[in-house]
């Protein structure tokens, strides 16, 4: 247990020491999105009855930052450790592959939630928000961060160089988050694109998270919860199997 909590604490301390870059910067980015899109689209787009566009936008932005930062935390920590070689300290220690997995994922969840809370705190200043179903919000924030933390770990294990990881981040994670309905409701899309959005796992996380705020969503939150949980279970199993085999970590 001490091994796990130490690795977890080390991962927390790592991003906390550079919190301007890992927490403050992403909060600022989200605020810019809110100011720009809110300014341009306020009054032109209405998704839910009686919900202003800016208010609609906030939960999506919060969840998007939760997801992107959870991914960034585990993936960048692992790839840095692999490239600088200090991963050896973890590999030499009596730490099981499961402890390794959960420590990285838990730290990613912490960073994702910290950034999400920061975005929410600042954006709540601009718009009036109420939480219709806070438990749904919490469940999606938590599970979404865990899923992206595990995906980040997976990307970190598989990548050998920073640019491979960056490619994964820029060509997979970023498009999927941007096209997940953060800025629009997928009901506003033409049929083909709407169907395609249903194949995007990020859509369910954003949609379910948003349900917690407005009590309204594009699909039933329970369906989203099941899909996100199953996705997490699948990625977690893959990660655990890779870590157990020592893939690209031990020779």
């Amino acid at each position: 247990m001490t091994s796990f909590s130490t690795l977890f604490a080390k991962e927390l301390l790592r991003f906390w020491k550079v919190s301007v870059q890992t927490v403050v910067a992403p909060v600022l980015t989200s605020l810019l999105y809110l100011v720009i899109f809110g300014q341009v689209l306020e009054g032109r787009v209405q998704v839910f009855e009686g919900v202003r566009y800016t208010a609609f936008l906030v939960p999506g932005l919060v969840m998007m930052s939760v997801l992107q930062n959870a991914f960034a935390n585990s993936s960048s920590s692992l790839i840095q450790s692999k490239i600088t070689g200090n991963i050896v300290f973890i590999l030499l220690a009596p730490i099981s592959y499961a402890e390794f997995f959960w420590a990285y994922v838990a730290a990613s969840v912490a960073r994702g939630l910290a950034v999400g809370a920061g975005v929410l705190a600042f954006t709540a200043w601009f718009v009036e928000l109420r939480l219709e179903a806070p438990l749904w919000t919490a469940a999606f924030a938590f599970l979404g961060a865990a899923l992206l933390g595990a995906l980040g770990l997976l990307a970190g294990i598989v990548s050998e160089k920073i640019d491979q990881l960056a490619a994964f981040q820029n060509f997979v994670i970023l498009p999927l988050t941007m096209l997940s309905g953060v800025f629009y409701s997928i009901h506003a899309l033409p049929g083909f694109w709407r169907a395609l959005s249903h194949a995007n796992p990020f859509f369910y996380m954003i949609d379910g998270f948003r349900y917690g705020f407005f009590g309204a969503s594009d699909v039933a939150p329970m369906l989203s919860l099941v899909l996100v949980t199953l996705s997490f279970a699948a990625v977690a199993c893959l990660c655990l199997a890779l870590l157990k085999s020592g893939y690209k970590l031990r020779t």
Partner: protein
Amino acid sequence: MIAGLARADRGSVTVLGADVALDYRRARRMLGVVPQELVFDPFFTVRETLRIQSGYFGIRGNDAWIDEVMHHLDLSAKADANMRSLSGGMKRRVLIAQALVHKPPVIVLDEPTAGVDVELRQGLWQFVRRLNRDGHTIVLTTHYLEEAELHCSRIAMLKAGRIVALDSTRNLLAGFSGPRTTARVVARDGTQHMLQMESYAELERELARLRVQGVEIADIELERPDLEQVFLQLTGRDS
């Protein structure tokens, strides 16, 4: 393989009876490894690094021992300095301290003197000898055979992943089948003469023989067989 960084294709490795694959927690607790490369985590200070390392091994509240290790390695003044700001030699000391936080009975030094300055090298060997006297088993891997000859009581020689010899230093030297001793004589006219003898007792007779031939000796160099020759002989036989 001993430390679990690589996996054996077949066979098994145990550390004081603990199998490194089946009982890896116990095996790794008994092992302190000083890696060859100067690796460090740039996010932390020396003390944080050592505390984290202790935690990995399940030890909390290890500050008394951490202070002692830092003291012996002359690291106390740098305890709160960031790892990034340390010189190469200092980073090497932190690596040694990291291997010692959990007081392992077996310490593996992987080429500890590669690229290390003379002063640190002397200090390092002194400290390692102390650890050895205190009951730690030291496993040294090195390419410098004179280091092995000087410090080790038992030596394994590997070539292409196979152990070609495993014995005490004395027995390895005794088993050398070439000439026991050699004298290289350089004459005043620049010619060289190699004298091969069973022992230095024969040196006087050999030199007398040279003088009879009219050789005027300008310089003389004596060589005993060392581990390098033993190694070359052992591995040469294989190839």
